């Protein structure tokens, strides 16, 4: 059965600010740990261009709308991907959306990881916690490609809950095969697991990156990003070269509703990707902000 969405009242493409574009679910993959990756294609035309770290507002019709990072590679042909973690009514509905169904998409919004801004010869350290690996996926793939030809090394430190809840395990393995330094640390081990157990930040002192010529990207629970950024700075990384992805309650995604404020920032507009030095560093320490 074909799914269509028509738009009456105003001529498309001049949509209202809060009106979503209809997209069809063309693929879904259960990642484990309550995470489902949806592949989406627009009913009409191609998805708009986006950059690593940006997000879309996804509408589960009949339930609501939520901000989800885009985890596929910009410019690649085919569908865009979003990895959704089932934590509430809207994400629950998205995770259950079958292939062929229609969801709404608005975006892309927000700031990006600025992979282009990292010079070729610099090492890049990526610290990801849990579902935080999803917004970094596209950037990591890009960095793997860029560093195939030489230049600085790529280090991916992923922290997961347990060995049976490792998200994107195939990607991690592929990146390791392509020459990136990849470690996966779990909070709690299990029989058969021989990898590191503990907090992912404890890997940093042993990771052989050149801190004097290095950029870092961190994404995950805020406490994890806070500790990871500090550990990176202790290792000698310039705080302004560390970027984190901040999160707050998001409703409109376009700087109109006021919910995503974090101090001087409107995260849908001035974030979610934000430099640590001078900005996130201070915001992390301001309680109840």
């Amino acid at each position, binding site marked *: 059965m074909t799914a269509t969405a028509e738009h009456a009242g105003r001529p498309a493409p001049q949509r209202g600010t809060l009106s979503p574009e209809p997209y069809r679910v063309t693929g879904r993959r259960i990642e484990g740990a309550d995470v489902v990756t949806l592949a989406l294609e627009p009913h009409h035309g191609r998805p708009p261009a986006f950059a690593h770290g940006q997000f879309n507002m996804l509408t589960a019709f009949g339930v609501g709308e939520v901000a989800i990072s885009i985890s596929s590679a910009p410019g690649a042909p085919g569908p865009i991907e979003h990895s959704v973690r089932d934590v509430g009514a809207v994400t629950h509905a998205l995770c259950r959306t079958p292939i062929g169904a229609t969801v709404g998409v608005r975006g892309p919004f927000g700031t990006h990881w600025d992979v282009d801004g990292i010079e070729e010869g610099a090492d890049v350290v990526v610290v990801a916690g849990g579902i935080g690996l999803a917004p970094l996926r596209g950037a990591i793939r890009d960095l793997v490609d860029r560093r195939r030809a030489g230049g600085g090394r790529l280090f991916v430190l992923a922290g997961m809950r347990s060995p049976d809840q490792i998200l994107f395990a195939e990607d991690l393995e592929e990146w390791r095969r392509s020459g990136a330094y990849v470690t996966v640390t779990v909070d709690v081990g299990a029989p058969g697991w021989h990898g590191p157990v503990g907090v992912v930040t404890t890997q940093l002192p042993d990771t052989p990156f050149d801190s004097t010529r290095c950029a870092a990207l961190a994404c995950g629970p*805020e406490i994890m990003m806070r500790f990871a950024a500090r550990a990176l700075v202790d290792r000698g990384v310039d705080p302004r070269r560390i970027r984190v992805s901040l*999160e707050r309650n998001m409703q409109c995604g376009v700087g109109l509703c006021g919910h995503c404020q974090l101090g001087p920032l409107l995260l849908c507009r001035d974030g979610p990707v934000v430099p640590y030095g001078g900005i996130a560093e201070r915001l992390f320490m301001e309680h109840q902000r």
Partner: protein
Amino acid sequence: MTETIHEILSAHRFLAVLPEGTIELAAACAPPETFEAGRLLLREGDVADTLHLIHRGRVSIEIHGPGHCRHIIDTVGPGHTVGLSWAAPPFRCQFDARALEPVAAVAVDSECLRARLGKNPAVGYALLERLVSVLIGRLQAARVRLLDLYGNDSDR
């Protein structure tokens, strides 16, 4: 009734097994302090330069995150210590410490303490041994808590 610093420290479990002279050393670096319920003794990110010897009231060790507000990791009561990060670089508090009820403590200034211990290595060694024993106890407890023994078996 006001106890002197000397009396408080003499009675405090942390220093009890230490050699003669430790009390005097600590007392020289240790003003008394009180905290109302809800006040912070330590704040994550601050310079770690104090060892608090609690002799009345309980303190929670916490970490804050948005939405969940505060995770209470541990509680510390009379006879125990708050503050470990003063003992090693980067000398920065890793957690918040908050008084759960009115707290009376002795605040041992760690820079002052380290300077005096430098001149009394035997006492210094004994103090660090004592500290390590506290650390081992807390680490082992933390590891066992990671097992989440009371969680549902279906979660494994």
